[in-house]
Each structure stands twice: as C-alpha cells, then as structure tokens.
C-alpha cells in the first residue's frame, strides 16, 4: 500500500515534468479540428475532414481515414463549419500611425529644389505600427489573418510589412519585412513636384540616381584606390534593392493613366512592379494581360478626384461607384487576368467583405474571389510556400465559418493565426445611438495657421451613418466613412484643392446646433466649427 502510494507520487511528478518540458519546447498548443468541410484552395474540397495544427503550422489535412488525432491535441469539434485558409489583404494603410508633422513654414522662397518633397522611401511601415486591438479584431472577424501594411503619405511612401494578426505585438506579427517599396502618383503640394508630370520626372530621376549611386559604389568596392569615394546617401541606399535587385515596387494607380505611367516606369527601369488600387484596370485589360503583372485590386469603389468619372458629373460618378468599379474584378477575370483583392482605401473591415460581395454580384466567381484573397496574394507577395492555402507545412492561418464564406449570413466562428486560436466575439454593439440628427445644412469656418475658409456642409444621416458634402470656394467634396456615435462625429473627405488631392479626417463633437472638431490632413490640422442653418419654413 505504501509502495503503491509512492509510485503514484512519482508518476504524478513525471507527468508534470513531461508536460512542462513539452510546453516549453513548442510555440503553440496542438489542435485537431474535426468534422468540418475543408476548402484548402490549392486542392479539391473535403466534405468531412480533419486539420491538425501543431507549433503554429499545419501538420496535416485530410479525411478521418487518413489522419489519426494526436493524443496531445485539443479537439475542436467543427461539425457544420467550413475551414478556409486565413484570408490575405494585400494592401491597407490601416494599423499604422504617423508622427505629427511640423507645419510647413510660411514665406519659404520657392525656386530652389526641395530634395525632401514627397520622398519617404526610408519610412518603414513596421516602425509606424500601432495596431489597434479593435482594428485587428475587426479584420479577424471577417476572416482576414494576414495584411500587407503600407504607409500612404508622399510619392515614395515607404516600405510595407506583411503581418499575421496573431496579437498586438509588432515583432511577433511580422511575416516579412520590408516587403515592397510603395510609390504613389501624388504631388508634393506647393513644393516640387506639384503636378503629376513633375512627379514622373522626379520618379525617373530617383531611379537614375539609384543606378548611378550603385554603379559608383560597386566600382569603388572593386578598386577603392585612386577613386573618389561615393558620398553615403541613406535615401539612395534604400532604393538599391528595389531599383536594381528586383525587390518589388508597388505602384498605387488611381486611374488608367496612372497604370500606363507605372507600366512605363517598370519598362524603363526594369522594375519588379506590382500595381495596386487599379480600379480602372479593366479599361486596359488587354495590355495588362500581356504584361502578367501582379495586380492588387482595391475594393474601395469611390472614384478618386483624378478619375474621369468624377469630371463627368454626379450621375457618372455614382455609376462609377455603384456599377463600374465593383465590376472591375469581374471584368479582369473575364479577360483572364489574375489579381488579389485588397481593402486599400477602406477604413473598415466590414466594408471589405461587403464590397467583395459586390464584386461577386458583378460577376466575379466565388472561387476566384477566394483565390484572390488567399493563394494569389500569397503568390504575389512571395509567401506562397508558407501561406495562402490549407496544406501541410504551411503557417496555420485557418478560419472556421458557419457557411460559405461570401454568403451574407455567414459568420466567422473561429480564427487560427500562426496556430493561435482566437474566438470571434459576437458582433460588437453598433455605435451608441446618435444623440442628435444632424441631417441638414450647416455653415461655418475651417481655420488653420494659414487662414480661414468659409464652408457649407450638407449632412444626411441614416442611423449612425453619415453622408454628405462640404462646399467652399475650392469646390465641393464628398464626405465618406461618416459615423455618428452618441455625440461623437467622424468622417473622411478627399478634397481637391487647386488640382491637388488631399485626404482629410474629421473628428469632433456634436451639439444640438453646433459641431466642433478637428480636421487632420498630411502636414497639419485645422479646426472646423459649424452651426446649423435652420430649415426655412414657408
């Protein structure tokens, strides 16, 4: 009896000992997802199968006959659920925050070349990461486990980072860094280059400079003696892998002319180019098909101010947003072009899924939509050996859904990112009920350090959602992403001021007859004060 007791104590310690050893040797727990339908994307679906996840990787995928459930696995009963690879969003500007810029000094003499204008190639998205828990959760909630995060400001906006949404710690989230250099056909507002033709010259010059700098460096490396050493240039250093070593350069193209500009630069400097945005890609599908370039098609359907549709009147603009842009993906598919779908331009994850459904409604086959959110982006971003499908050895980014992924009623039930299980919370409460109805006309001033501007704002409210327009001497701009929660109002707006595009974000407080808040934009901020103009009663 005594001996027996003794033995059981030893057994107890042994078990504890092994458990500790084991758990310290592995990254994550072991899961066996059983009885689910499996859509591996890279191979044919399984009606009822098992997925084993170990150490953050997919150990095996198969039918119950093929796969035994390991003893150490936590079994996840997934009867009635469907397993998909975690979705990849191949371009977003969310998850990062810019440090506040010093406002530009007034009275600066023009005529001298501003070398710094629009030039942030050295900015690393990784260093700007400030992922908000709510944003991460909102992405996981729609089944996205991986995002390519890129800075947006400037002509060269910096280098992107590929993240797995496995927590909130940037270091553990990084899959690949840096991924690509990002280029926008934007302008430097008041500085050189102030027009897109200037931007093109500026881009061409910087690629030429990178070539020259690299040539000088490599010559110097061969024979330093008797040669003037190249002056160290931290910005040009950044360019070398992209301009000369075929690391990808992602051009964000707002309209079809931007696409042609990008193609021209890619040819001239033999770049490994990827085109993003490309809402008007269908218009030159024939040419793009021949080029076989990776396309990251944005699901943000508002035509940019530089689009011809905006200049053709309100009716055309609405048609572009509701019909033409949503059909872009379907049209590209018909032309036999592969692409990834991205949330670029959208500030809410829900909208991403919603707009994917719009693209499907416009004719994009569901299977293709799924591929363009999994295996295609993985391929374009050079991570197809570790991501994009459910197959043994790949990173365990797996989602379990209540039904077919793009169906409206479908909910994502469980999300594995790097083998870590995240339960999806029930849909969070929508914002607080609005305290006021702000529909109607408002008048007021925008004031910033350069002066004041009179503005008239028309709001239209539907529940929490706010739409409308801002008009001033500079033109009329549309309010997007407007939201009123309680008395807190936020909206964005893309303004065209003297031929230049400006992204603005407003956040402020609403009172019965006044709205007070701050507009932030690249390079500064402004105060917006509005008072309600009472409706005329006759």
């Amino acid at each position, binding site marked *: 009896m005594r001996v027996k007791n003794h033995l059981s104590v030893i057994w107890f310690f042994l078990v504890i000992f092994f458990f500790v050893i084991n758990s310290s040797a592995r990254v994550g727990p072991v899961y066996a997802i059983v009885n689910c339908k499996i859509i591996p994307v890279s191979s044919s679906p399984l009606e009822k199968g098992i997925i084993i996840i170990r150490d953050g990787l997919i150990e095996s995928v198969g039918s119950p006959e093929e796969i035994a459930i390991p003893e150490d696995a936590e079994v996840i009963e997934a009867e009635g659920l469907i397993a998909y690879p975690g979705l990849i969003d191949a371009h977003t500007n969310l998850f990062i925050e810019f440090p506040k810029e010093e406002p530009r000094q007034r009275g600066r003499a023009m005529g001298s070349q501003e070398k710094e204008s629009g030039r942030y190639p050295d900015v690393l998205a990784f260093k700007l990461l400030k992922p908000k828990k709510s944003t991460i959760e909102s992405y996981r909630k729609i089944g996205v486990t991986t995002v390519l995060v890129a800075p947006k400001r400037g002509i060269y906006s910096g280098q992107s980072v590929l993240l797995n949404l496995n927590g909130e710690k940037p270091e553990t989230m990084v899959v690949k860094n840096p991924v690509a250099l990002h280029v926008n056909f934007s302008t430097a507002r008041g500085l050189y280059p102030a027009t897109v*033709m200037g931007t093109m010259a500026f881009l061409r010059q910087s690629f030429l400079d990178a070539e020259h700098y690299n040539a000088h460096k490599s010559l110097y490396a061969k024979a330093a003696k008797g040669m003037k050493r190249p002056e160290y240039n931290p910005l040009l250093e950044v360019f070398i892998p992209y301009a000369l070593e075929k690391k990808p350069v992602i051009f964000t193209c707002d309209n079809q*002319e931007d696409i042609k500009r990008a193609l021209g630069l890619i040819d001239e400097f033999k770049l490994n180019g990827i085109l993003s945005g490309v809402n008007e890609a269908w218009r030159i599908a024939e040419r793009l098909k021949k080029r076989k370039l990776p396309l990251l098609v944005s699901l943000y359907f508002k035509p940019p101010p530089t689009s011809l549709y905006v200049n053709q009147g309100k009716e055309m603009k609405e048609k572009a947003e509701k019909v033409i842009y949503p059909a872009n993906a379907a049209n590209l598919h018909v032309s036999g072009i592969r692409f990834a779908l991205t949330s670029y331009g959208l500030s809410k994850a829900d909208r991403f899924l919603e707009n994917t459904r719009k693209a499907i409604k416009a004719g994009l086959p569901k299977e293709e939509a799924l591929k363009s959110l999994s295996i295609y982006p993985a391929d374009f971003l050079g991570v197809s050996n570790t991501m994009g499908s459910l197959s043994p050895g790949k990173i365990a980014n797996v989602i379990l859904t209540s039904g077919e992924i793009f169906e409206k009623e479908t909910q994502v039930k469980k999300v594995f990112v790097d083998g870590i299980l995240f339960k999806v919370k029930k849909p969070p409460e929508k914002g607080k009920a609005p305290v006021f109805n702000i529909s109607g006309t408002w008048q007021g001033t925008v004031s910033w350090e350069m002066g004041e501007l009179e503005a008239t704002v028309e709001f239209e409210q539907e529940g929490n959602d706010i739409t409308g327009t801002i008009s001033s001497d500079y033109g009329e701009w549309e309010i997007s992403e407007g939201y009123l929660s309680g008395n807190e109002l936020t909206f964005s707006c893309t303004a065209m001021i003297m031929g230049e595009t400006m992204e603005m974000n407003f956040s402020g407080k609403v009172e019965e007859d006044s709205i007070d808040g701050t507009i932030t934009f690249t390079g500064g901020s402004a105060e917006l004060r509005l008072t309600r103009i009472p409706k005329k009663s006759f």
Partner: protein
Amino acid sequence: MKKNIMSLIIWISLLVIPVLISGQNLLIKNGTVLTVTKGTIPKGDILILDGIIKRIGENLEAPEGVRVVDASGRYVIPGIIDSHTHIAITAVNEGSEAVTPEVRIRDVLNAEDTAIYTALSGGVTMIHTMHGSGNPIGGQNIVLKMKWGRPAEEMIVPEAFRTLKFALGENVKQANFYTPVLRYPQSRMGVNAIIRRELLKAKNYMEQWDRYLKVKKSKKSAKILLPPRKNLRMEALADVLRGKMMARCHSYRADETLEFINLSKELGFKIACFEHASEAFKIAKELSAERIGISIFLDNWAYKIEAYEGIAYNAAYCTKKGVLVSINSDSSERIRRLFNDAAKAMKYGGLSEEEALKLITINPAIQLGVERIAGSLEVNKHGDIAIFNEHPLSAYTRCEMTIIEGEVYFDRAQYLKEREEMTKKKPNEEKKKKGEEI
C-alpha cells in the same frame, strides 16, 4: 482538307490584316477641294487608302468596299492644325520651380478631355499641346492627333519636332501677381539671366559627358570609369543645345523677343516659334531673317499689360514680310473656330484666301515639323481632312465632318441624329427608374 487549309488561311488573314493597317480607306467625292498648296479643284475627289492620301483628282472610282463620302456642294480642306493649346492634358504648369524642362506633357495626357471632340467639331485634326507659361523654362510639349475615343498613346504624332516650352515676361516674372511666396526671377532681366544660367549649366553638363565618352572610347580607356550622373533637367536642355529639341517661346514684347533670339545665337539653339508675339510686327524683319515663326491670336490685344501694343494686322503684316505665321487657340473653346480667326486676316491686312487658310494648316504644320504628313491636301500625306458646308473662310461656314487618317471622327449629321435619339430615350429611362422605385 484543302478547304480546311483555305479557311484557316482566310481566318488568319482576317485576324492579322486589321492589326497591320492602322489607317482606314475612304473616298471623298465631288467636293470643292482646297488643297492649300496645290490650288483648288472645283469638283474633286480624294482617295485615302490605309490612312494615306493615294489620289487626288476628278472622277475617281472607289475600290471595292471603300466607304464613299459625298461632298458635293461642300468644301474639303486639310485638317486644321492648332500650334498652341493646353487641351487633352491633366496638368499644365509645373509651377513649383522656375526651371523644369525635365517634365513631359506626354506623362499627363488625357484622352478623355471633351475638348478633343470640341476641336474635331471645328475641323481640327492635330494640336500642339504645351506646358504652360508659368516658368522661364517649362516642360516638353507634344503633338497629338485628335483621335477621340482612342488611347492617348495612339494620338501622339512621332514625326513632329520635339519642343520645349520657354516663357518670358509677365507670367514668369510674377511681379504683378499675388503669390504667397516670391520666386526668382521677379523681373525681365532675371528671366533672361535664369534661362542663360541654366543653358550654360547644360553646356557644362554636356562637356562632362563628352569627356567621359572620349575617355571611354579611347584605346587607353581606364578599366574603372564612372559615368557622370544622368540629370534629366540637364538632359532636356542639352537636347535643346544639340538641336534635338526646338524652343517654343512664349513672349509678347518685341524687346524680350529680340533678347531671346540673341540668346539662341549665343548658345546655338533653334527657336521653332514665338508664342503670342503680339509685337512681332515691330520685328518682322528680324524674325524673317532668322526664319523663326510666330503662333499668335488673330485679334486679341490689350487684355494684359504686355499685350497693349498688339494689333489685328499682326498676322497679315508679318506674313507679307516673310514670317511663318500660324493662328492658335490657346483655349478649349476658341479651338473650334480657328477658321473664323483665319478669315479675319483677310479683313485686317488683306491676305488672300489661300494665305489665310495657310495660317491654320500648312504654316502650323511647318512649325511643328509635320509638313511632310499634314497641313495640305497632297498625295502621300495623311488623310487628315475637314469638310465644311460653305467656304471655310465664310462667316456662315460650319464644319460638317472631320477625318483623321481616313477615319471619320466627327460627323455632324450623325452626331445630331444620335443626340436626338438620346433625348428621346432619356425620358423613357427616367420613367422606368421611377417605376422601379415605386
């Protein structure tokens, strides 16, 4: 089997042939043909094959399948050429700096600018669309054909001169403008100085490259040789100095115009043309001697301080003094009635019909370096043609049809028909929409 092969060959040829032929076939019959350079044919025909004028004469027969346009009672002239506009582009001035020759208008083409269609409706088939006059040295311009509906790159005319915009006077010195920040130069002497300075820099840059190439080519070439840094701004100016690119210079006053000519002689570059040149009549002798053209408004004067001494006789007077004169629109609206402006040169200064027509056809063609392919109705030139209901210099005239390379891009009758159909359709559609909503 044979049948199969035959049908295969037919299929392949059907697929291949349209790719090879860019232009169209067209026969224009029985019009009053104003060739501009080869006189008038009262009842003439023009046969265009593959976009090129193959025959001009009387009683021509249409080869099988070729579309025939009946021009009886109408006037057939070469497509009008506008030597100075800013249409079909999304940016005009890179105004952030005073010297920006590295920027190219071809990078900001906008094939969907409706001004292209406006131009077609006025018989314009070719334009020189330019950088603005905001900078002493602006950007690289481009010549386009008004192929409405085609992609921008198909509109470019590769035969034309490469031209660089220069500008003098009020617009670039900006001393009378309200600008929040001051920019050098602020005076006419500064304008001349900055242009001179930049061109001298370019000379220096060229010498640097010449030295490098010389060493590189020499047998004793060092193994390790670093080429100079390629500078796009200097490259553009070097092309001007090498004669590969022509200067097109915006200037109003006679004094600064002469100064610019002196500069071109000093540094050895070619001026194709002065823009606006409202005081050209004062220096017609010099312009004619230097063989520099002018591209002007016919009758705009005194609309700004440097245009006070402009006169409507400028075009006729300079023409008679041997200066190559063209009339430009500089506007997306005036572009559709350049023929009216040309006609005014008959009233103000008494040009002949042919001389007046030249102001908007062959003269701008010469200024743009495209006289081999456009500007008059001659065999082997492009089939770029405008058809008017009355003599194009009549006050009552109207452009009926505009043709580029044998393809009809504007047909007034067709357009009016379509417009009528559209207006008929629209109310129905609106009713439908309302019905859906209910």
